[in-house]
C-alpha cells in the first residue's frame, strides 16, 4: 500500500505532471483581474469564488494520467494478480493523488489570493476550505478517471461527468469563503468531501474491474 502511494507520488513528480494543475490555477488567478478590471473591492468580493472555480477546473487536468496509463500498460492487472484488491489500489491512488494535488494547490492559493486582493481572513477561509474540499475534488478526479479509462477521447467526457458532480463542493467552498463560519458551509463542505472520499475507491475499483471485460 505504502509502495503504491510512493509510486503515485513518483509518477506525479516525473515530468512535472503535478505542477500542471498548480500552474493552471495561478494562471486563472492572473487572468481574472484582467477580465473584471483592477477594482480592488470587487476583486476581493468575487475572488474567493473565482479561485474555487479555478481549483475545480485544475482538478480536471490530471484525469487522463491517473488510471489510463496503468490500465494500458498492464500495471493494474499485475497488481490484481499479486492479490491487491482494486479498491485498495484506488485508495492508494487517491492518497497519492491528493498529496500531489491538495497541498501544492493550497500553497499556490497564497500568491493567487494576493493577485485577487483578498484580505487575510478571507485567505484563511479559502485555505481551510481547500484543505477540507481538495480530498473530495481528488476523489472525484479519480472516480471519473477510472470510469473513463480505456475510452477514446475521454477528456471531454470526463469534464461532462465531473463538473456537475463537483457542484456541491463549489457551492459550499465558495459559500464558506464568502460568508464565513455562521453559514455552516464548512461543515457541509466536509460532509460532501467525506462522502466523495469514502465512495470513490469503491466506484473506481468497480470501474477498473468492469473495464477488463
Amino acid at each position, binding site marked *: 500500500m505504502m*509502495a503504491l502511494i510512493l*509510486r503515485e507520488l513518483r*509518477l506525479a513528480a*516525473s*515530468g512535472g505532471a503535478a505542477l500542471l494543475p498548480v500552474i493552471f490555477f495561478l494562471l486563472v488567478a492572473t487572468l481574472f483581474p484582467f477580465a473584471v478590471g483592477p477594482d480592488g473591492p470587487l476583486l476581493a468580493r468575487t475572488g474567493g469564488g473565482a479561485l474555487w472555480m479555478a481549483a475545480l477546473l485544475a482538478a480536471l487536468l490530471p484525469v487522463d494520467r491517473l488510471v489510463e496509463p496503468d490500465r*494500458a*500498460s*498492464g*500495471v493494474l*492487472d*499485475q497488481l*490484481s*494478480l*499479486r*492479490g491487491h484488491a482494486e479498491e485498495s489500489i484506488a485508495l492508494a491512488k487517491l492518497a497519492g493523488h491528493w498529496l500531489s494535488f491538495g497541498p501544492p494547490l493550497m500553497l499556490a492559493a497564497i500568491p493567487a489570493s494576493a493577485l485577487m486582493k483578498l484580505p487575510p481572513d478571507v485567505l484563511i477561509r479559502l485555505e481551510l476550505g481547500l484543505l477540507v474540499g481538495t480530498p473530495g475534488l481528488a476523489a472525484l478526479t479519480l472516480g471519473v478517471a477510472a470510469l473513463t479509462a480505456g475510452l477514446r477521447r475521454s477528456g471531454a467526457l470526463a469534464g461532462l461527468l465531473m463538473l456537475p458532480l463537483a457542484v456541491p463542493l463549489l457551492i459550499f467552498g465558495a459559500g464558506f469563503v464568502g460568508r464565513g463560519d455562521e453559514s455552516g458551509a464548512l461543515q457541509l463542505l466536509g460532509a460532501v468531501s467525506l462522502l466523495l472520499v469514502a465512495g470513490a475507491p469503491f466506484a473506481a475499483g468497480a470501474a477498473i474491474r468492469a473495464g*477488463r*471485460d
Partner: protein
Amino acid sequence: MSLLSFEGVACRRGGRLLFEGLSLTLAPGEAALVGGPNGAGKSSLIRLAAGLLRPAAGKVDRAEAALADEHLALDERQRLGAALAFWGGDAAAGIAAMGLAPLAEMPVRILSTGQRKRAALARVLASGALLWLLDEPANGLDGDGLTRLEAAMAAHRAAGGAILAASHQPLGLAGAQAVQLG
C-alpha cells in the same frame, strides 16, 4: 495439490462463446501449451487463469501466479533495474537469467520489442510465483532469448513450478499437455 485447475470452464467474450467445457489440471512440474487459430481464445484462457476474467461457467482455481502478456507493466520513465525492482522478488536473478544485465541502467522506454519481451519474462522469473502464465512468450525473442526462455522454464518446472503458455511456436516444453482451442 494442483497449482491450476479448470473445471468445465466456458468463456464468452462480447456475446460470442469462445470455448466451453474446458477442464485442465496442472500439478507441480507440469506444463500446458495452448494452441489454436487467432481469436480462438488463447489469451482469454490465460486471463481466465490469472483471474482477470471471470468464466461464463465452471470454476478456476490457482496458486499464486505470475503473468507475462503483451503488456509490459513497467514504468516507461524508470531505468529497467528500478522498474523491475518495484515488483519485488529477486529482480537481479530475473535480469541475469534473461541476459538483460547490460540494459539494467537504460530507461524502459527505449527498449526494443524483443528486449521488452525479455523484461516481461524477467518480471515473471523474479516473482517467485509457482505458476507462470505466459501469453506468446516467444514473440519477438531472438535465438538467444528463446534459449534463455527454454532454460528458465525447464529450471522452473524442475523446481516444482507449473507453466501455462499460449503460443504458436513450439516452446521446448517437454511433455507438455496440449490444449487445442477452436
